[in-house]
């Protein structure tokens, strides 16, 4: 998957630095899906990764690229995720860099399979604050669709 995205961006003539940022955000988002999407299509085991459901879309909007990611998550975890993302929206790029440095040197949060650095990495590379929304599923109140948009 990653290779396909890389090739597409190269063929589309996107500049090196932008291509790197887009690829980086793509990896962070798709690994978020793989690790956190509530809809496991295949349960993971020791030697076999889980397969989970979600979608990532990259489009071009004038000067910028828009990366959109959607995946189902447990409604019970919405508040905790909102509390991670909301503060990032009000931070300056300098503050995001500082938070990134701090997070790099701190221990991995217990609920995190990654480094807790993923959103900070994306926020650092984006050219506008990360946008996000939660849409509870009417037919399944335990599940909420999580949408995240990064403009790069």
């Amino acid at each position, binding site marked *: 998957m*990653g*290779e396909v995205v890389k090739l597409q961006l190269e063929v589309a003539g996107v500049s*090196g*630095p932008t291509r*790197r940022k887009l*690829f*980086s955000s793509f*990896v*962070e988002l798709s*690994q978020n899906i*793989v690790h956190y999407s509530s809809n496991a299509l295949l349960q993971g085991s020791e030697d076999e*990764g889980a397969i989970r459901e979600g979608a990532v879309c990259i489009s071009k909007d004038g000067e910028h690229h828009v990366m959109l990611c959607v995946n189902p998550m447990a409604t019970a975890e919405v508040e905790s995720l909102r509390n991670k993302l909301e503060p990032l929206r009000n931070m300056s790029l300098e503050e995001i860099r500082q938070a990134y*440095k701090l997070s*790099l*040197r701190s221990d*991995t949060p217990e609920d995190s*399979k*990654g*480094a807790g*650095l*993923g959103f*900070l*990495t994306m926020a650092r*590379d984006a050219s506008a604050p990360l946008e996000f929304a939660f849409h509870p599923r009417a037919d399944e109140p335990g599940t909420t669709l999580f949408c995240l948009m990064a403009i790069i």
Partner: protein
Amino acid sequence: MDNFYIAATTTSPEVDLRFDQHALSLKGESYPENAAAFYAPVIEQMRKYLAEHAGAVVTIDVALTYFNSSSTKMLFSMFDALDQAAQSGSRVLMNWYHDEEDETIAEFGEELKADFRAIEFTDRLIAHPGR
């Protein structure tokens, strides 16, 4: 102890730890699905080597063109082990290779320099492959 080698894949780097030559190398891209699982044995071997060869002059070449956030975290703890060895009598020479256009990797190199003062860093610019 035996040398340690892992071939590169699309999502993980080549790891070439030639302990008999005190030459370590990481090369490629790093975004494995489970970075902790990928790096744990690498760090373990490196720690073991460093403990057994106190006082050695160790060279490590790092030529990673991309690493995701969870790999970043693991790299940080790997370099921490090297820094500790350098503080207790070994010499660690790190060649930090990065593309001249890639600010992210250059900046991460600066972070490393600031934190791991006992490691002797050399910035190695890779000329940009023809555009």
